[in-house]
């Protein structure tokens, strides 16, 4: 101890006790504690060894300890030795005198963290956007039709589950017998001429959304909102033909295989947080890219051919687009999902024009897609 006499506020003399664990042996050493104002430092003295000096500024207290009647201290430099203080008075004084008791240890290895962060992002990106799509496209070519069918049915179930409003059941599939017959007749009329590897099944989902989907294995789903928005059966036929174009090109199968590949990787990233389902679903929707422009153009071309062969006007689709676009511009509302999907491809105008030109391929006069009573049945399929 220094023998200098201090003038003014003199720090209270401190005599305390603790237990030192020196970090080399597990034997606890009782030590007496004092503060050397020259430094200032905590002096740990024991009879059988020389004193140790722990600068007050370097004292750190372990966080989140269960026993609040006890203070476990270490120094900022040395990670191994520990000082356990139980006396209330010693704890009070140390808490008051040590200036950085709760300072966090410095962050080390930031560079390595950044490097591995970049590696992880690159790896995941390469998998999801490059390797998985590449392999999915290859594998889709070799998948037998029965396998595709199973995949399609499962996907339909997932979509029905996700779109169900209560969140627990499956969204209803409309099954009015007369409406079903009308839809089947329309589908058959289009597919009679097409050489598809599987039977096509068209279903209507009871949802107020202007949209249509093709699923693997020849399953085409129309939403009730789309049938209500169509003014003529020819418009429904045109949408159906477009989706059949995707079916013929196996676009949905590729998409479903891509999803299967990326779901596991995303599950990996999100960990046990929130069980993953909702976040997984949302994220999955985000990365599920729309079909490429080439795929859409291919489906259009295929649809034009199919419609012309069945004696239907390809431009019916253009009529519907135009009307929806006008309605949307009129009431300033958000564009319906369907149109937004199509509009996301910048060539919507081109596609409308192409549909109109394709009418030229129609030999002879166009025929009605459905008889008036069948069209009524189709429109009330969800009742």
């Amino acid at each position, binding site marked *: 101890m220094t023998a200098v006499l201090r003038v003014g506020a003199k720090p209270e003399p401190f005599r305390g006790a603790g*237990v030192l*664990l*020196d*970090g*080399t*042996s*597990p*034997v*606890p050493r009782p030590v007496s504690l004092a503060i050397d104002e020259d430094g200032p430092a905590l002096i740990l003295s024991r009879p059988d060894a020389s004193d140790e000096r722990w600068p007050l500024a370097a004292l750190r207290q*372990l*966080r*989140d*300890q*269960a*026993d609040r009647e006890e203070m*476990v201290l270490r120094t900022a430099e040395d*990670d*191994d*030795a*520990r000082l*356990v203080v139980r006396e209330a008075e010693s704890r009070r004084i140390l808490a008051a005198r040590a200036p950085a008791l709760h300072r966090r*240890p410095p*962050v080390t*290895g930031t560079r390595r*963290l950044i490097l*591995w962060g970049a*590696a*992880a992002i690159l*790896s995941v990106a390469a*998998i*999801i956007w490059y*390797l*998985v799509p590449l*392999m*999915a496209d290859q*594998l889709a070519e*070799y*998948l*037998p039709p*029965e*396998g*595709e069918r*199973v*995949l399609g049915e*499962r996907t339909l179930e997932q979509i029905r589950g996700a779109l169900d*409003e*209560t*969140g627990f059941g499956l969204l209803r599939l409309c099954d009015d017998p007369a409406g079903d017959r009308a839809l089947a007749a329309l589908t058959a009329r289009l597919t009679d001429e097409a050489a598809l590897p599987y039977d096509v099944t068209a279903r209507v989902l009871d949802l107020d959304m202007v949209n249509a989907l093709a699923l693997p294995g020849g399953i085409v789903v129309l939403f009730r909102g789309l049938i209500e928005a169509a003014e003529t059966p020819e418009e429904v036929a045109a949408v159906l033909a477009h989706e059949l174009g995707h079916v013929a090109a196996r676009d949905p199968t590729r998409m479903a*295989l891509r999803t*299967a*590949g990326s779901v*596991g*990787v995303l599950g*990996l*990233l999100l*960990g*046990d*947080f*929130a069980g993953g389902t*909702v976040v997984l679903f949302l994220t999955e929707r985000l990365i599920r890219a729309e079909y490429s422009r080439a795929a859409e153009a291919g489906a259009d071309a295929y649809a034009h051919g199919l419609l012309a062969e069945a004696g239907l006007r390809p431009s019916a689709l253009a009529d519907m687009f135009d009307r929806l676009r006008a309605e949307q511009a009129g009431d300033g509302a958000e564009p319906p999902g369907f149109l937004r999907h199509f509009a996301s491809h910048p060539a919507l105008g081109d596609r409308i024009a192409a549909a109109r030109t394709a009418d030229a391929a129609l030999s002879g006069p166009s025929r009605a897609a459905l008889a008036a009573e069948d069209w009524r049945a189709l429109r009330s399929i969800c009742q």
Partner: protein
Amino acid sequence: MEEVLDTEFRGRRGRLFWMALRFSILNVLTLGLYRFWMKTRLRRYYWSSVRPGGLPLEYTGRPLEKLLGFLIAVTFLAFYIGLVNLVLMFLSLSLLNHDYGAYAISFVGVIPFIFYAAYRRRRYMMARTRWRGLRFGLAPGAWGYAWRAIGHWLLTILTAGLLWPRMTFWLEKYRTDRTHYGNLRLEQTGRWTMLFPAIVPLILGLLFCAAVIVVSIWQEERQVMTGLVLGLPWLVYGLAHYRTVTFRRLTEAKTAGAIGFRAAPRPWRVFRIYMLGTTLIVLAVLAFFSLLGLVLAAFFAGNLDELGVIAELPERLRGLPTWAKAVLALVVYFNAFVFWDVLTHVFLTFPLWRHFAETLQVTGAPALAAVRQRPRDAAQEAEGFAEALDVGAAI
């Protein structure tokens, strides 16, 4: 030093509850990133509440090293899981015409990694655990562990569970024989057959349940099924009994030089924790959802007098705009998640830790004086693989 060291337990359920609640909410708000901090801080608490010989265990793991380990694991596993899932899905669809097969096989595909990850996790936790200033450690050997674990599991499945005690013993021996406290090596002595009595109640419970089901189907008497009211708790007891008794026998057969252990956890106590804990968790979750229902009813009705509005709640909810439904679904979902997490800590993990800690003793303690510190184990991958694959216990 005394001959026998008792273990004290100093944790408090209330403080743990507030910690777990705060951390879980932060975890949701940070989209799961806080989980590395959450795990670190909760482990500090759990570890420090266990005090063999009156001095606390210390957990020295750091959050950022967990994040680093996770990033390393993701970098490698993304390739494996992305490609393996895709190929398995393809094979399952084209060969079995079924995709359930794919989920089953893709699980099989990660099994070696799961055991590997479990061992790495243990190695990391050991390297970050100290008692009386000295580090624990687990020697490398994760792949050896993975292959052994797979072999033992196959044997266990092929023998309808009869060889489960054998697996428990040999895997514990593999881990224990590689465990060090300072420079002192632990050893698992004993034979696997000493664990066999532990599984008897579980086997009897299974036979009882099977008999109930068979009889009720055979006789077409539905009432016989009520026998399951007895049978299912019996199974839970069987599991509690197995876990407790194997822990006791294995711990008492561990040695480290002249140092030994005594453990006296009680199967009925563990059974009570299981049953009471799950009941309380379920009740709390139900209470939460009833409260949510009331709040929504009040919101729609303006006041709670018109309680009839609860009946039409589904109708009213259906009428909400899509964004409001999405927000509501997320709120409910995350709340359920937070609740589950916090209540599991408070009603299951905490009482189990307390019971197993309080009934543990260290014998031959004077021999500790000769032990010295061991070098640090960087364990750079931390528990990243376990984190990514979601392997591991409650903490």
